[in-house]
């Protein structure tokens, strides 16, 4: 049995910038997209900063929820941690090793299900099993996981024959199959109906309690973040893609919130309701008709 234990995650000074694609426009357009003028007179190509100055330490076994507006770099952060992308600056560590590529100790549940269309549901889940899982054990593990996500009856269907929400649950089962040290989940419950969503949340907590693993969970749902996580990390959009002089960019992480109370939490907890309003207002959502004129997180 793989003895994957929960691993700490350390992110220090991470930045990720993407080059702005060459414009189709004329010279004027190109000039406007070149940000800094080098001392030699040449222009430095513009880059779009997606994540900047990200510092975050996640304890082994901790569940951290990442929230933030669409396009702020949540998936990018998970891709960096999963070794699918490399930071422009800074380092990411899993355990005490710097992430340099994909790692058998991490598993990603992608934002899209990304199932292999030529494999059945069960075979897709089996892809997640660690290398060297004995043949006899494979079938029972897959059956267990399918039961966990409520898809036992669909084991032999192909991805095109199942619904979007079912596909997402297969993807979750595949990630859990790995029994990873660090589990990276990108909106794992996004496509589910409200009821299934609550059930899957309970299942995740149950799996986590039975076999602690470090979880980074991206979600759009503030309530879900507060219900599941030990801490909630709020990110912001640091650059709108037009002009982003490096010196002006503020850190991506706006807020790290410790969620009070121990799991399992009471969904009706008044403290959580207050925090929810606070976080939503931080994201720029007006939660009351009579707006308390609360300041959103300082935007750039």
């Amino acid at each position, binding site marked *: 049995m793989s003895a994957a234990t929960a691993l700490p995650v350390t992110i220090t000074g991470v930045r990720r910038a993407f080059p702005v694609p060459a414009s189709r426009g004329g010279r004027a357009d190109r000039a406007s997209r070149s940000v800094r003028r080098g001392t030699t007179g040449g222009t430095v190509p513009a880059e779009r900063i997606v994540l900047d100055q990200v510092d975050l330490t996640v304890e082994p076994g901790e569940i951290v929820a990442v929230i933030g507006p669409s396009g702020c770099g949540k998936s990018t952060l998970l891709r960096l941690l999963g070794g699918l992308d490399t930071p422009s600056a800074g380092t990411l560590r899993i355990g005490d090793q710097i992430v340099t590529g994909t790692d058998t100790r991490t598993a990603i549940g992608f934002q899209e299900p990304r199932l292999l269309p030529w494999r059945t549901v069960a075979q897709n889940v089996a892809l997640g099993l660690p290398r060297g899982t004995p043949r006899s054990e494979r079938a029972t593990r897959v059956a267990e996981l399918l039961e966990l996500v409520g898809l036992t009856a669909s084991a032999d269907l192909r991805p095109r024959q199942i619904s979007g929400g079912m596909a997402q649950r297969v993807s979750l089962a595949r990630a859990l199959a790995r029994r990873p040290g660090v589990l990276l989940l990108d909106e794992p419950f996004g496509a589910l109906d409200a009821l299934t969503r609550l059930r899957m949340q309970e*299942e995740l907590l149950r799996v986590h309690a039975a076999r602690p693993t470090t979880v980074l969970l991206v979600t759009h749902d503030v309530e879900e973040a507060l219900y599941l996580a030990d801490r909630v990390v709020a990110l912001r959009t640091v650059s709108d893609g037009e002009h982003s002089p490096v010196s002006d960019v503020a850190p991506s992480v706006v807020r790290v919130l410790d969620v009070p109370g121990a799991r399992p939490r009471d969904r009706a907890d008044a403290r959580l309701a207050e925090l929810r309003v606070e976080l939503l207002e931080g994201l720029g959502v007006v939660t009351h008709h009579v707006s308390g004129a609360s300041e959103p997180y300082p935007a750039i």
Partner: protein
Amino acid sequence: MTTVSDQQTAASTRSQRAATTASTPRRSLLDRRGAAVVGGLLLPALLLLGWQLVTTTGLVLAYKLPTPASVWAAAVDLASNGDLYLYTAISTQRVLLGFAIGSALGLVVGAVVGLSRLGDVLLSTTLGAIRAVPSLAWVPLLILWLKIGEESKITLIAIGAFFPVYTTVSAALRHVDPHLVEAGRVYGLRGVSLLTGVQLPAVLPSVVSGLRLALAQSWLFLVAAELIASSMGLGFLLVDSGNNGRVDRMILAIVMLALMGKLTDALIGLLERRVLRRWT
């Protein structure tokens, strides 16, 4: 272990319903497949009838187009001394050998070009130029290098089979969904296991359609090879009969090429159906 039982029952009734509804269209599909066979034979039957009419009424003179009966007689005649069988067999053997060699090479080179940037940079320009050479242009050179024996013909057919496979495989591999490749990498596939686990299965339908094109191209190149330099085969039968004024045998050769081409294509079609059924 708690289960999401009502969901399961929902899912199972859904799949049962799917099964029952699936069985009805399957029947009508079978019917339609039978209809498709009949429909496909309709036009050839009409052509045969038209052929019979124009030749027996003397609308077209016999030295240009002999009657179906005399073509049949030519077939019986050639079959009786074994030539028909020999020519068909040797042509089919050439096609199959050339096709096997060419498409295997096409698969390997297509994989190299489709998967590695270096392979693409180094090879694709040259191969594109070679592909642009018309098939007949190779014949004199191949005869010079490989003599008139089997090698020159099989090489020419292999060239013909190579390009459809190479082109479809390299293009398909280049466009494998990067999301799936990433998913494979995250779950520990790399190198050969990534190739066999994600990339090849992803391009399998394109590979099969490339093979199908390659087979058609092989018959094309066979005739090119046999027209110019051979003493056996359906292409030889075509030229030889042309020189001797045996129009009946020329038509026989064309009919045999059509039949053999269709037969081998149908075999690949079966393979394609099996692959696609597994794939989707």
